[in-house]
């Protein structure tokens, strides 16, 4: 009997006014698999990711988690579902007005009633696992470097051990060494939690480090999806051009700019 996919998308579409960003996304992600979504800027990767945890509602199609449809389930069901997700945003999205410990344990402290002292202990323990000094918990996001903020965002995503982790460009804006460290932390966290992960990345070195499977979005559809090791021999010109960072190919500058203008 075939295993039920952890996440299954069928014919997912999303438009913003006249801009058709997603034109029919079909994708399956197996339990504990690490999928990386690649594609040019503005092609709809972030919209696709936000559809997965209900931040954006698709116009049509189906999204199933563990075989259960999540679209049209209502706010309460969506909130229950989100308890199973952890997510990091491209620019961290840490809460400026809260200290690090409260950022990391936000859901535990505010939603599940965990006491301050216990929340601080858990925050300190979690960020220590990610290579940050425990003393950082009393500082504010603006006092941390970009790399440290990414680690705190990662800590916030994994602290309550979610089943599914979403990472939106986790290494963007970081130097290659720090980016490598973040990748290693993501891989370690995924293994430790046994989580299914979906990552958006433009950084091919990062893709090779963390992906089991790669999917490329272009013009609102998945034009190729397959094991990361097959990425180089996909036979799809757009994938080849993207993977090798070539300026000549089917992905012209005009096309990319036209995509970006949509979002």
């Amino acid at each position, binding site marked *: 009997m075939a295993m039920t996919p952890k996440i299954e998308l069928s014919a997912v579409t999303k438009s913003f006014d006249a801009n058709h960003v997603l034109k029919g996304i079909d994708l399956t992600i197996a339990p504990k698999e690490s999928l990386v979504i690649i594609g040019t800027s503005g092609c709809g990767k972030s919209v696709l990711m936000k559809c997965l945890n209900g*931040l954006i509602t698709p116009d049509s199609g189906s999204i199933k988690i563990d075989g259960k449809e999540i679209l049209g389930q209502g706010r309460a069901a969506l909130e229950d579902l989100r308890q199973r997700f952890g997510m990091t945003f491209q*620019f961290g999205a*840490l809460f400026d007005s809260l200290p690090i410990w409260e950022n990391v344990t936000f859901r535990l402290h*505010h*939603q599940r009633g965990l006491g301050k002292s216990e929340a601080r202990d858990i925050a300190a323990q979690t960020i220590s696992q990610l290579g940050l000094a425990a003393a950082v918990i009393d500082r504010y996001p603006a006092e941390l470097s970009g790399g440290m903020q990414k680690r705190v965002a990662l800590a916030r995503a994994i602290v309550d051990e979610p089943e599914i982790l979403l990472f939106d460009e986790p290494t963007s804006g970081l130097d290659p060494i720090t980016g490598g460290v973040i990748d290693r932390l993501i891989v370690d966290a995924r293994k430790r939690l046994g989580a299914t992960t979906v990552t958006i990345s433009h950084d091919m070195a990062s893709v090779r480090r963390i992906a089991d499977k790669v999917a490329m979005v272009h013009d609102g559809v998945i034009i190729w999806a397959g094991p990361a090791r097959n990425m180089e021999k996909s036979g799809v010109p757009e994938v080849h051009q993207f993977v090798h960072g070539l300026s000549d190919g089917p992905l012209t500058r005009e096309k990319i700019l036209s995509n970006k203008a949509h979002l």
Partner: protein
Amino acid sequence: MLGFVQNIGRTILTFLAAFGRITLFSVTAVRWIFTPPYYWPQLLRQIIDIGYYSLPVVGLTTLFSGMVLALQSYTGFARFSAEDTVATVVVLSVTRELGPVLAGLMVAGRIGASIAAEIGTMRVTDQIDALDTLSTRPMQYLVAPRLLAGTICLPFLVLVGDVIGVFGGYIVGVYRLGFTPSIYLARTLEYLEVSDVTLGLIKAAVFGFLIALMGCYHGYHSGRGAQGVGRATTNAVVSASILILIANYVVTTMFFGG
């Protein structure tokens, strides 16, 4: 001619759409005020921001307004020998009109802008989306405490502003215009009714709600980047100020007009 009519129609539709959005936003936000969980630390922080830190601005504004009012009314009333009504004019003007309106406008500038900038920045840096992913309703966590704090704090600010404004009139009346302190105070209280103060406070509560509502609404729907946040901030202050003046007339008509 057709183009002119089209423009009028488009403007009316735009206005109605904005009115509908704001109404829906405020109804949703008010609903969350009364729905658990309650974020007490957030509410306390907003009360300190809106109430405590606005005291100097409101105090200075009403102090000098009371002083100017005493001077101006003395000059005007002297022309028909009614100088002894200065204290009464000052206290009624401050409690019924100047206190609530001036405090409202000053707080709209200070707090409306601050709320719009903070929530707008949270919008453009994905912090509001992050709240959603952490199973926290942004309307409940961000908007409801601000609306409640605005509605609670403005009456207190206005009450303090009323006292300071009347005191400003007293200083000018006694030390510059030569009134006897006991007579000035007696005239201040002689025609003042409790309803003058309480209805001024009701106005203040309405203004506080509107200031917080405009700050939250424009911040929540802020456009992208620094420009978007800047525009949201400007819109929050301008719309709150205009709504205060409109609401002032409406509330005055409702309570004093008859």
